[in-house]
């Protein structure tokens, strides 16, 4: 008997099961994975936004040499042109003989020399990226890069696009974050400098966090994603500490702590204004400064009140492909009196504090596992008024659609207000 019902579970049921019993439908290694147009970026993070290849290019004045079977570089063909980094990607394609002999590895220095001949401007760094094949061949890419660096007279950094390790201890998007900061060398730390890490692209420069930091005496705020020059990038290690905005960067932050004694503090991207305010206060206390965020907080509360009055009772769908944690965002909407109806999201252990809170506010909301094989049958079961997230907008395209997936990263009260503004624009 064929079951054509896409798998889903209520938030309340998820809370009941708990973080140690996440249903197999949300665990990619448990089943075949469906790549709906909405979940394309799960299977291939580079399909939209940042995957390993583009992420490595966050290092300013770097280029990438992808050493892999042709299929691994295929999406770069289109994306690199659309997103403006085609001139920074080079390819050394493997064939079957290379699998057996490993001779492709011997060609890396020559390939790098050819890159240095044509790349304009000459890069400061060449990132060599290998893929699943070299993972299985246990290629020692670090040694190969050290050898190439010596022969070619340019910094050569290894990076790994090993989709096979996605649910491992160090998945590819975690490791690439470490790679991005791997060239930083220890130097004296300056008390009036901080580094922000977490997203591959820069924060919205107008968000209040920068203003609050400056008022607290921070003169330099570094973000690798906002830098053009390698010499600027090198200043990052003069930061007093790191501010980590995405858990996937924790490993990189820990590495910097161990390697160059740079401590870090974690913050979360939140949309509930009370929680944003509380987080700022805790952060300020932790670093021994005062954050007077009252003006921003009051403005945010005012906008939220207007938003509530207008949209109370509206149904909402939220996806994974948005600049938010879908469960946290759903919790905020529920608090505003909207009705989270549907979430399209993977579920991980880290989501459970938000899931538990959401269960108390909107326990009936259904969570669909976007990667489940059953999603081949998904049809929008009922219209929702507002869809947030690129994937949710594909699944539920009838109402107000807000992708909320820009490269300019929202954060704090400004991020919240901008989201409200986007919903209003979608409603206009």
């Amino acid at each position, binding site marked *: 008997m064929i079951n054509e019902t896409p798998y889903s579970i209520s938030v309340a049921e998820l809370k009941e099961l708990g973080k140690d019993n996440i249903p197999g439908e949300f665990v990619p290694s448990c*089943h075949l994975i469906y790549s709906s147009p909405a979940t394309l970026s799960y299977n291939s993070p580079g399909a939209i936004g940042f995957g390993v290849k583009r992420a490595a290019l966050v290092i300013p004045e770097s280029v990438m040499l992808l050493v892999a*079977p042709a299929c691994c570089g*295929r999406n770069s*063909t289109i994306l690199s042109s659309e997103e403006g980094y085609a001139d920074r990607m080079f*390819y050394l394609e493997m064939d079957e003989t290379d699998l057996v002999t490993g001779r492709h590895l011997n060609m890396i220095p020559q390939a790098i020399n050819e890159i240095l001949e044509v790349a304009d401007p000459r890069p400061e760094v060449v990132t060599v990226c290998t893929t*699943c*094949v070299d993972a299985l061949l246990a290629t020692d890419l670090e040694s190969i890069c050290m050898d190439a660096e010596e022969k070619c007279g340019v910094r050569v950094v290894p990076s790994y696009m090993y*989709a096979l390790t996605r649910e491992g201890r160090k998945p590819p998007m975690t490791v690439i974050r470490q790679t991005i900061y791997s060239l930083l060398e220890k130097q004296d730390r300056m008390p009036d400098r901080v580094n922000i890490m977490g997203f591959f692209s820069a924060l919205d420069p107008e968000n209040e966090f920068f203003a609050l930091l400056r008022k607290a005496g921070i003169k330099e705020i570094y973000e690798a994603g906002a830098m053009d020059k390698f010499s600027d990038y090198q200043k990052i290690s003069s930061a007093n500490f790191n501010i980590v905005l995405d858990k996937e960067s924790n490993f990189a932050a820990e590495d910097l702590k161990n390697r160059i004694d740079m401590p870090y503090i974690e913050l979360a991207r939140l949309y509930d204004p009370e929680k944003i305010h509380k987080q700022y206060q805790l952060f300020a206390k932790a670093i021994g400064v005062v954050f007077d965020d009252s003006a921003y907080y009051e403005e945010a509360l005012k906008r939220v009140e207007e938003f509530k009055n207008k949209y109370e009772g509206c149904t909402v769908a939220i996806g994974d492909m948005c600049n938010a944690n879908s469960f946290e965002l759903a919790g905020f909407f529920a608090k505003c009196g909207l009705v989270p109806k549907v979430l399209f999201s993977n579920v991980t252990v880290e989501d459970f504090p938000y899931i538990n809170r959401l269960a108390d506010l909107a326990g009936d909301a259904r969570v669909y596992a976007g990667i489940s094989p*059953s999603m081949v049958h998904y049809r929008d079961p009922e219209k929702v008024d507002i869809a947030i997230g690129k994937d949710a907008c594909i699944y539920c395209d009838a109402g107000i659609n807000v992708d909320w997936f820009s490269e300019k990263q929202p954060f704090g009260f400004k991020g919240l207000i901008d989201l409200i503004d986007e919903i209003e624009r979608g409603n206009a």
Partner: protein
Amino acid sequence: MKGFFRYLSPFSPDQSGASAVFFEYGGITVIVDAGGCTGNVCGFDEPRWFIKKSAVYSAGLRDMDAILGRDERLIEKLGDAVDTVDANFIALIGTPVPAVIATDMTGLKKMAEEKYGLPVVGISTNGMDTYEAGEKKGYKALLELKDDPLFKERVKEPADQFDVCVWGMTPLNIPSLESAAMMRERIEKTCGLKAVTLGMDSDITDIAGIENAKIHYCVSPSSYDVVKKLCEKTGAEMRIGFENGEECVLPFEDRIKGDVLIVHQQILANEIRSMLRRDGIENRTDVVSFFEMIPELSEDGDTYIKSEKEFTDLVKNGNYGTIICDPLYMRALKDTEIEHISLPHFAVSGEMYADENPLEW
């Protein structure tokens, strides 16, 4: 240096070609990978992904699956899909990971058939060959599927018999997604015969009726061998090309200057050459391709290109006045003075230049 691309980018790989052959047939297609290959196939090499439903899945292999050769886990995972999709067959498509660990696709096929009672094809693509190699394997597997007893039990001959089969019609070979319908119309008009375009706008029952066709068209090199063998077996007539008549025009003929180089899949390129000659353009016209070239369909001056450097040298030294090719190739020819006529090839640039397609057939 062989395999090194300074300017050009990777073309569609063989797994995309194999996947394209089976896309519309209502089977369960499993790309045996960790995830990235499937994302590339669905997101970049299969334009129908966004407009037609197809049960294409990633096997979601992880490191321990590969290291320990846990084929039985993949077979188990198939169960969820089999329970969810009313499929007529399963297609297992290889990628670099199973190639490295020498996965026995025939063995996987047998295990899956035994467990689920569905016909299974296993295609040993490896992600390192280009798309037409995968299509070739896909078409071979299609014929094996046709003769599979499990398939014959499930799929009967088409209700609507057809006389003509067109092979090679995948988005990676043809000017646009409308090309299949346009060609069927032309065949009906010129020959008065009903045609099916296998793999495009095609039903699973068409596979069962393949050997009844009187004429087999081949519109890409990937289908040449299979069509030739089929015609030898059944006595059907083999035709090469797109059956373009006088009403099909090339809108860029007034831009032709000097000698001409056409870069595309060979049969489409040959078609353009024939049309140029039909319309009185007798300039030297050569066809080259980064994809398979059939010697019997080549003329003097036609070449299979093995590397980016070979391509740039050929253009620089070939004294061509005009190049008809995908715009992406021009990245490698920035310093070359030559008239460029845009002819997008999906296997090269995907959707990037789709709206520059000048051909209405």
